[in-house]
Structures are given as C-alpha cells and as structure tokens.
C-alpha cells in the first residue's frame, strides 16, 4: 500500500513538472502579473541598494576595494571630485594652482563641517595626509599611490600647499581617489583608528549610523552638508548580497530599489520588468587572459599572438555578453588617458593563428592550462568559448575553476595559474600609469613573470614629467610595444549594469562603482 502511494506521488510530481514547463513555454512568462506591478511598498523616504561586497573596513587608507567606494562615496569627500562623466570638479577645495614645479596650492571651501559637527579646515587636510603618508598609512594599500607628495603645509585656515618630492602628472586625479578623502582629526584622535574603521565620519552627504558586517549599512542624511538642497533622500540602506541570483530575487520582490552588478545573463530578466529600468555605464575594467610569459609554449611571442588571432572577441561580446561589452586593443579602457586610438584589436584570423603556431614549432594538440574563478558564471562561459576557438587552431585548453580570491591573491602572484588566467583590471586613476606600472614593471605583486627593458625605460620616462603631451607620446610607444608583445589577450571592456526601480529618480550609474546618491530622490 505504502509503496503504491509513493509511486503515485512520484508520477504526480512528474506530471506537475512537465505541465509547468509546458505552461511557461506556451504562454511565455511575460504575461504574469509579477513583471508589471511594482513590488516595493512601505518605504516612503528610504532607499535600499543591493551591493555585492563588504570591504570590512571603512578607513580610506586601508582599502582599495570597489565595494568600499559603493558606500563610502556617500560618506567621504576629497579636495576634488570625479563626476559621473569622469570629469574632475572642485569639492572640498574651490580652486588650485601650481605655484612652482613642486608646490601645488589649494584654496579650501569655507563653512564645511564633518557629519559630527567638527569643522573642516586646513588642519584637517594636513592631518589626513600626515596620516596617509605616515606609519599608519604604510599598513594599507593606499599610501603607494601618493608617494609623490612629501608633505602638506598649512598657509592659513583655508589654504594649503602640497609640497611634492617629484612632479606627479596624475596627482589631481589621485586626489579624487580613495586614500585622499578628508578625515576628521579630532574624531579620530579621540576614538582611535579601530573605531573609525567601523564608525566612519566624513563630510559627504550621508552619515553612517549603523554597520552590520556582511549584512547591511545604514546611512542617514547629513544635516551639515554644504551643498544646499542635497541630499534629497532621508535614509539609504546598503544591503550586502554577494550572490547575484539572490540579489535579483530581492530586487524582484521589492526588498531593494537598486541592484548593483546585474549579470549579463540576468539583463533580459530585468528588461522585462515594467517597474524597473536596466541602466548601463561603461567601466574602465578590462577582462583579459593574462599569460605567464615564462611558461612554454606561451613564452614564445608568436604563440601569444596566434592565440590572440584565434579568438573571435567580437563574437564573444555580441553573443556571450549580449553586446554588454566593448572591444579593446590594450589593457586599458578608452576612458583612460594613454589609450592608443590607432591600435585596433587583433582581428579574428584562425588561418594566421595556425601559421604562427606552426612557425613557432607548436604541435597540434598541445595542451594549455587556463585558470578562472569558479564563481564568475559569465566569465566561465567566455572561457569555454575561448577554449572552443583555440581548439580550432589545434590547442587543447584545460580549464581549472578555482576560488576567485585564491586566484587573485595566491595563484596569480606566484605564477601558479597555468599558461594563462582570468584577470580583470580597473585602472582607477583613468591614466595608463597605474595599470602599466603595476602590471608590467618588474617585481610588482601582480606581475610575477613579465619583464622587458624597453618597457621599464618607457615607464620611468612617463613618470618623470607632468607634460601631458610628452606623456601621451610615451604612452603611444608603450602601448604599441605591449600590443606587439601580447602579455595578455584583452577580451573586452566591461559594462556595469544596474537594475533601478522606477520609483528612484535622478540616479545615474557610475563608471567607477562610486555610487552617488546626493541628487537622487524617490517618487512618493
């Protein structure tokens, strides 16, 4: 009896499954009410943003994570600020000029207060940079970006001079960076750095009122904010939801208003939602397959070129990424200074690839190891497509999926990630200097194998001048050299996708993950 009942149950289950799948195929799932009715209710002047990571410390000198800037961009401000069009604007400074080659003078904005009421002045700027450049800053990753600054000199309460050790062509851009946001001296001296890392105070439009690790961050309107009429929203909650499927589910049920990092594969789902808009912004992040140029057979430049010719990058962008990506010739985006417009991405030419492989003496069926992050579903599809292209020119690729952070922090720096591996790189200064130096200069953390004397010479030359036309020229030589050497196959420049509920007004997706909510408001 019992068994018969179980059997019946199973058959019933099968029927239900089949019926369900039949249903969705005949009707198409767009007719259901789930896509048209706005699911958000009960949050009048509160915005919830779903982000993908928690930086674990809000101290600006201790971080280099994009996850930090998602939230901290609302809490902190620098002397200058980069807007959504990536232009530099005055923020806490009102104007600046070079007094001489190594002295940069800033006039500071008057009447600005930190979120706890402490006044912002020249002393705060000096404190911030003393801290960044001193022993405390040494412990974090930010100091290295600001080594061209020797010290900050107070002229009067609203004027400071930056005394430089050497000219730094990217300094103004860097002052909009994470490490250079201004921090409150009295507050930090009173509470200590440990407390500050969990209870940050800045001059930005929102004040952090609560932070639960790996869970959520609550921001409330900064009543002292210097820009009149901003911010418009009373309360902003950042919920930390690392898994993209969960994030999307939360968006669809109305638990969050803005979803950061919509996966390419989820874009179609978001587009169907009538109460939401899929927004996109090009980013400086480039995804590449980087070679370990010491390993055979990719130590041979012809083999690296052949691999570049063998991969149809355009098809990958159009089909696998559904068009959410841009072709790219070198390891920097078109958004960045030093991008070489004359270089075109290696065209898809399998015949040429085969010829190059043959002339390099690579046998048909040679196998290569590729390491990718197992949790990155989109790149997994890209990697498999690449493997199929390489198979067509006679290379066999073994794809190893490993934990993402193990790949970037352990395997890549030690040269243990096979012949080639996945690498995404941002280049946050939007100047090729940052990328080129960290990735091609000998002995850098993420460069265990590449060395070229000419590249070293060009890098040194580029750093020794602030003359942008000269630097542009050097970068043209450098990019040409790297283009020929193929230390990596540049697959695509990414597009950041945001799902935004239509009740949010005035939100513009950032190019650089620095979410700006000061001008956003909510429909009642």
């Amino acid at each position, binding site marked *: 009896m019992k068994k018969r009942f179980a059997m019946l149950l199973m058959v019933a289950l099968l029927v239900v499954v089949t019926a369900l799948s039949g249903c969705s*195929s005949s009707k198409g799932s767009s007719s259901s009410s789930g896509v048209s009715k706005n699911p958000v209710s009960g949050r009048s002047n509160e915005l919830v943003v779903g982000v993908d990571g928690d930086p674990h410390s809000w101290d600006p000198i201790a971080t280099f994570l994009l996850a930090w800037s998602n939230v901290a961009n609302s809490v902190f401000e620098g002397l200058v600020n980069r807007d959504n069009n990536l232009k530099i604007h005055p923020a806490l400074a009102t104007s600046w000029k070079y007094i001489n080659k190594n002295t940069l003078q800033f006039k500071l904005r008057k009447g600005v207060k930190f979120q706890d009421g402490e006044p912002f002045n020249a002393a705060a700027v000096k404190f911030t940079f003393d801290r960044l450049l001193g022993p405390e800053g040494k412990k974090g990753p930010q100091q290295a970006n600001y080594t061209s600054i020797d010290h900050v000199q107070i002229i009067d309460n609203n004027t400071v001079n930056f005394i430089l050790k050497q000219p730094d062509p990217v300094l103004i851009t860097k002052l909009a960076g994470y490490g250079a946001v201004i921090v409150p001296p009295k507050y930090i001296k009173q509470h200590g750095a440990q407390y500050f890392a969990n209870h940050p105070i800045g001059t930005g439009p929102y004040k952090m009122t609560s932070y639960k690790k790996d869970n959520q961050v609550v921001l409330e309107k900064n009543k002292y904010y210097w820009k009149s009429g901003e911010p418009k929203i009373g309360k902003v909650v950042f919920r930390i939801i690392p898994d993209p499927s969960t994030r999307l589910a939360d968006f669809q049920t109305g638990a969050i208003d803005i979803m950061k990092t919509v996966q390419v594969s989820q874009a179609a789902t978001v587009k169907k939602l009538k109460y939401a808009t899929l927004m996109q912004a090009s980013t400086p992040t480039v995804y590449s397959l980087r070679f370990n140029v010491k390993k055979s057979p990719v130590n041979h430049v012809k083999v690296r070129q052949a691999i570049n010719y063998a991969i149809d990058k355009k098809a990958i962008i159009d089909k696998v990424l559904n068009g959410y990506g841009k072709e790219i010739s070198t390891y920097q985006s078109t958004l960045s200074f030093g991008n070489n417009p004359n270089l075109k991405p290696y065209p898809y030419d399998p015949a040429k690839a085969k010829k190059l492989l043959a002339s390099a003496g690579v046998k048909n069926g040679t196998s290569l190891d590729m390491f990718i992050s197992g*949790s990155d579903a989109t790149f997994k599809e890209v990697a498999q497509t690449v493997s199929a292209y390489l198979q067509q020119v006679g290379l066999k690729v073994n794809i190893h999926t490993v934990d993402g952070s193990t790949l970037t922090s352990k395997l890549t720096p030690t040269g243990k990630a096979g012949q080639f591996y996945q690498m995404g790189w941002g280049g946050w200064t939007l100047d090729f200097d940052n990328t080129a130096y960290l990735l091609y200069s000998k002995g850098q953390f993420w460069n265990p194998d590449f060395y070229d004397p000419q590249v070293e010479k060009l890098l040194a030359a580029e750093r020794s001048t602030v003359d942008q036309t000269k630097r542009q020229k050097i970068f043209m030589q450098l990019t040409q050299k790297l283009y020929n050497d193929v230390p990596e196959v540049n697959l695509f420049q990414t597009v950041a996708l945001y799902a935004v509920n239509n009740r949010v007004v005035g939100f513009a997706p950032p190019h650089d993950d620095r979410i700006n909510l000061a001008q956003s408001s909510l429909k009642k």
Partner: protein
Amino acid sequence: MSEAAIQKNDRPAKIKSKKNKVLIFFIKLIRNPSALIGSLLVLTAIGCALFAPFIAPYNPEKINLIERLAPPSWVDPNSPYLLGGDPIGRDLLSRIIYGARVSLLVGISGVVLSSIFGVILGLIAGFFRGWLDELIMRIADIQLAFPFILFAIVVMSILGSGIWKIIIILGLTYWVGFARIVRGQTMSLKETEYIQAAYVVGSNNFKIIMKHVLPNVFSSILVLSTLYIAEFILLEAALTFLGLGSDPTIPSWGGMLADSRNYLSTAWWTATFPGIAIMLTVMGFNLLGDWLRDELDPNIQI
C-alpha cells in the same frame, strides 16, 4: 498476479541451482512495478553513459554561439536542438547524455572506494573487537560529526578541484556507513554456530572472514551501495553547482544546473532538463535500492 503468489510458488528454498536463483530474482524484479521502473531508469542512465557517442545527436562540447539559448525544437521549430541550447549554444540533450558519464563515474567509483574502506574497517572492528574496534568506531563518530560540504570545500581549496578529487573525498567520508553495518553484522555472525564450528575444525581468522562472514554481509553492502550511488550523484551535482567540480567544458548535470541559474526566468529549459535527469537517475537508484533491501534482507536498518 500478486506478489504473495509468486513468493509461494517460487520459494528460494526449493531452488537448487544458481542459474535458477538468478532467474527467479529477475522475475521478481520485473513483477514488482517500483523495482522495474527503478531498474529501467538505472539502465537508461548506464546506457547513456556507455553509448553516449552513438546516442548523442551533437558533440556535447561543440559551441555554436548562434544557437545560444535556443529553445527546444518542439517550442520553436527553427531550433536545431530537441531540448534546447545552453548559454553558449551547446546541445542540452547531448550534454545530458554525456553528463550521465560523470554522474555514474562519481556514483560508482565513490561507492567502490568507500565500500572498500568501510568493509575492511567494519570487518576488523566487528571481528576482533577490543581497542581496534574502539579506535575505528571513534574515528567514524568524528567523521560523522563533520559537515560533508565543509570538508569537501576545505580539501578542494587545498588540492584543487576535479572529478577524482570528489571521488576520493566521497570515499574518505562515506566509508562510515559501510563500516557500521558490516561491523554490526559481523559481531552477530561471529556468535553463530557455524562460525564457532569453523573455529573448532581449525579454520584461521582470515579464512573465516573471507568464507563465512563476507558472503553473509554482502547483501547489505549491495543495498547500501545502491542507495549511496544515488546520494553521491546528488553530492557531485551539489559540489559542481558550488563551482568545485570539474572543467566546465566536460558536461556534468550539476555544472549544467549551476550554469543555468541566471537563466531561470528567460530560458527555463537550461535548468529544467538537467534537473529532471538528476531526479530520474537518483529516483531509479533509490527505487532499486529499496526493493533490494526488502528482497535480500528486510531486517537491515538503512
């Protein structure tokens, strides 16, 4: 005809030859509907695994970006694929057929490995007792207290991922089930008269274990094996789903599920069919295992 009637007519006690015994066994299997369905499902999976190159309509690794997420051909007549295409345009049906190889390989090799460990340790513990028994059973207790997925993630982040590593991890954790059953039965067998008699006629321990104990615990091992294969197939799917499985170009059901997670609302077929494949195969092994238990040894507690 009812079950009872067959049993009355063909009482195994009456049968002398081994061949007849096997035949009776099969007749019983066929007459029992759940066992029949179970064995058919299992045979289908095994058939797919063995003859994949002949059955599969396409190369499971052949990427065709134009047919990316193509719907099943009975939904969209323009689609070349019967069950649709996956996110990079490979034929789902072919991948499901080839995927049986990974699932069965993991299921069967995992069981072979864990049963070898488990049976040997169980025999030693149950037969010799004493401090050896204590030691083995305490290790088993510790093993049981450790969450499997956590153990797998830790081991795989040290050793790297891959099918064979999954199999070894399964072997190293699931021997406990075999060891416990074998130990219990060995302990009671040891007290039976015929084993006492074997001692009296001068058989040594090894001979007694191999000739008298092992054959008597074999049916329990078989039942447990069948049920464990089902469990291992699910675990392999779970581990691959977590990104700890094999090379993503090698078709595996769990991997297919993981890859299609983001397409649930736009391309339902990508997750549905691999899911059904897992469900049917696991159900097949479970039905067969349940019937084997009832048939061979209704008293064992599994």
